[in-house]
């Protein structure tokens, strides 16, 4: 059901990647469509996350599933990339920087989520997590597609995914629950922020930018 939706998004997004050095108007249309689809995907994930977070926090038990729960954010939790950024800074981001921040954030968040998936939980939870990870993977690919269609290089992948997990693993089960809580919170904030990022990009992608870049390459 849902996986087919993701698949169609992916195909549509990836199929809009221009075959360089083809020089036609469909490129700018392609980027625009990809941005729209990425935006749609973030909204879809936001919706999916609500159910997943609800189930997961209930699994962690009170007080984690209480609506006003706000535990301290320990220094160690900084490894999860934060979506919160100064408003002026956010406004001033170049398209490339904006996309790259999203790409990097979701790549790392995906890594951490996958580790979560491997651990003990109910079968239902593991199933939901696996489904969410698949959708999130789709988002990362979609953002990559947008970046490529606009001629931006993809940011280098997160350095050695498995090692940091071992090094930064929470020293006890309670702290791990707190880490899980903040992971979900950060995911929520990122999806909320991405919607705004892609909305902004939707309005900003001009055809001129694409053509200029291709000319610079000597086509």
């Amino acid at each position, binding site marked *: 059901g849902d996986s087919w939706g993701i698949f169609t998004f992916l195909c549509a997004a990836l199929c809009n990647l221009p075959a360089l050095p083809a020089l036609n108007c469909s490129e700018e249309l392609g980027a625009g469509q990809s941005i729209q689809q990425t935006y749609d995907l973030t909204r879809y994930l936001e919706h999916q996350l609500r159910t997943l977070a609800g189930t997961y926090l209930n*699994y962690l038990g009170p*007080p984690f599933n*209480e609506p006003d729960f706000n535990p301290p*954010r*320990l*220094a160690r939790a900084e490894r999860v990339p934060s979506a919160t950024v100064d408003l002026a800074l956010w406004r001033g981001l170049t398209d490339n920087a904006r996309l790259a921040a999203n790409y990097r954030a979701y790549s790392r968040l995906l890594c951490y989520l996958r580790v979560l998936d491997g651990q*003990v939980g109910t*079968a239902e939870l593991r199933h939901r997590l696996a489904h969410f990870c698949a959708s999130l993977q789709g988002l990362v690919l979609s953002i990559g597609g947008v970046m490529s269609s606009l001629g931006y290089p993809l940011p280098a992948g997160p350095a050695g995914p498995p090692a940091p997990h071992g090094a930064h693993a929470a020293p006890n*089960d*309670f702290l791990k629950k707190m880490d899980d809580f903040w992971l979900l919170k950060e995911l929520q904030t990122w999806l909320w922020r991405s919607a705004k990022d892609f909305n902004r990009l939707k309005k900003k992608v001009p055809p001129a930018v694409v053509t200029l870049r291709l000319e610079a390459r000597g086509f």
Partner: protein
Amino acid sequence: PLSVSPAADPAVISPQDPTLLIGSSLVATCTVSPDFPLKAEDLYWTLNGRRLPAASYAALGPSTLSVALARLNGSRQQSGDNLVCHSRDGGILAGSCLYVGLPPEKPVNISCWSKNMKDLTCKWAPGTEGETFLHTNYTLKYKRRWYGQDNTCQEYHTAGTYSCHIPEDLALFTPYEIWVEASNRLGVAVSDVVMLDILDVVTTDPPSDVHVSRVGDLEDQLSVRWSSPPALKDFLFQAKYQIQYRVEDSSEWKVVDDVGNQTSCRLAGLRPGTVYFVQVRCNPFSIYGSKKAGIWSDWSNPTAASTPRSERVAGGCDPKGGEQNTTLRRELKQFFGWVKKHAYGCSNLGIKLYDQWRVWLQKSHKTRNQV
């Protein structure tokens, strides 16, 4: 606004993440880190979000507060009960996850079935309810009797929580030993070994293409026809069938047992002018000539048909007849309304369509009543 605490943990709880038996007692201590200006009297405890009574606290030092928990119940969630040490303003200083439950008991009621001899699915029940408070891992193992190697089943939860599916072709005419191991933080338990031959637990798909039709004008009979499940062709077994049928308004099924291996049957002694629901199921027996019965398949999806009602109307003033007429008129009105929506052209209009509508009506009544 992010409140980032300094690198050191504000406090330490002992014991950290203990595992306990249901009914046991626990004394936990919270010791504030020397970097923090908090005293024992500034602290309080919560368990799963609920504040624990101050009467159970004791100050063991200037910055150490203990809490006594007696006769613990099984954990509220399998991830552990959350025992938290707070500062006076509600801030979290440290936490410990309590795992309270029972060691597993031998899993019981192991039953297995093989679909067309192509696989094996087994299910079982946990030995005690107490082991559900903790995450209990179940592993289904199997091996051919007299041949060394233990194998482990990999695909779990295929037929409910406590089930596992072995997709490979298992050897026939060989007894298998099957057992389930349960383990959790408090211990391990192994079920009794079940011995079976795949050929003894074979089931198959329900019969397909079940058709129920009238027998001419006979008011009390219906004819049921079906096709044998496709897998039957491949295997050297015979099939025997069973039919069950019921009147539309009743939940009582009548079973016809002596159908044998025919693929058709005549139901008799039925009520005229009544809609009946019919299902058929199949049992692969005498596999390779063994004369033993297999396991009954699921019932086929219900098929509906109605017996004819004679056209002759009983003479005389029958008040009940009058009632029936208005009900019938109402029904017909509803029917034609439904037909307008669902029938494409009038060519399909007929008794079969009317019967299908009765089935649909029955189903929608059911769902309405269930809500």
